[in-house]
């Protein structure tokens, strides 16, 4: 029996029931989310299940949704079943004031650097990560640059043409 999005959804619903939410298929990619406390359980189930076998972590990143109060940060896992060549997307949401999410490093060794990068840019604290520190930006940086909280650097500069750097009024754009 070929593994389809319907099968995967069914298996997950049998196992996790009401905890599964936001199940959709944008562009055919099965996407779903679960409470953040369950993230390792879901990943482990997807890994161990003899039919699902999502044993490759393609990517791990985060998205900042400033308008979702209480669930501003989404941690996104992109998983790949290499035998059936099927990909899925799994999200967990967390409060930005308390961005603690369990680390997936025990399950996927490749999550190590990806979680460090996600911490570096979004400030998600991965609980249980062996070496959670900045990986790309300078160590002295005291903010998380990809959160949608900060203006572009130095709004007071006059040595650069404002129109070219998104600071000035946009005289070509008339709504």
């Amino acid at each position: 029996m070929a593994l389809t999005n319907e099968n995967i959804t069914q298996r997950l619903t049998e196992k996790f029931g009401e905890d599964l939410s936001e199940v959709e298929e944008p562009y055919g990619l099965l996407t779903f989310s679960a409470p953040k406390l369950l993230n390792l359980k879901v990943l482990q189930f997807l890994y161990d299940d003899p039919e699902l076998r999502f044993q490759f972590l393609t990517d791990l990143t985060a998205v900042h949704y400033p308008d979702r109060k209480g669930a501003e940060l989404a941690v996104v896992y992109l998983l790949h079943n290499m035998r059936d060549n099927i990909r899925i997307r799994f999200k967990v949401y967390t409060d930005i004031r308390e961005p603690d999410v369990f680390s997936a490093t025990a399950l996927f060794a490749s999550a190590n650097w990806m979680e460090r990068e996600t911490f570096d840019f979004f400030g998600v604290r991965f609980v249980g990560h062996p070496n959670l520190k900045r990986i790309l930006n300078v160590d002295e940086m005291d903010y998380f640059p990809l959160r949608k909280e900060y203006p572009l650097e130095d709004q007071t500069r006059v040595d650069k043409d404002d129109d070219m750097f998104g600071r000035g009024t946009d005289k070509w754009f008339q709504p």
Partner: protein
Amino acid sequence: MGRPVRFNTKVKMVEMPEGQTGEGYFATSFDKVIGLARKNSLWPLPFATSCCGIEFMATMGSHYDIARFGSERLGFTPRQCDLLMVMGTIAKKMGPILREVYLQMSEPRWVLAVGACASSGGIFDTYSVLQGIDQIIPVDVYVPGCPPRPEGILDGLMRIQELVGNESLRHRNSEQYQDLMDAYGIQ
């Protein structure tokens, strides 16, 4: 039968500095002689991080030939070089390394910032990019362009030569120079 030998008769020599000439002697000031020697034997240290570095490679090559200006000896160690050519975007994380390279050069030393990124951060007006290398090290000549053509880089080099040739021997001991170094926190 002898081979046809052709001598290059178009060799251009540097002009003699001003001075007193007599029978069997020539007298001029140290400033001028040392300036002349320095400016025609600059050893550049290329610090190339992106596309301006590609333009510099063209400048080095036979077509544009930076060797015509006495700078064919590129040193890839800061200890031997007296001209630091910074070409390309310098990320904030690269900043301390660039500064270290500058500190390892011995006096007298000059710095040429090639291209918009090295001079001002260029289009990368963002959290990760240093907004001009003059935030961490003093710069003598800026070359505009994104990237500048090899002619531009050569023009920058010639302006450095002009500075080097006209520099007073006492300049590096002056209070003004000391203040500049202090402003950058360099001892």
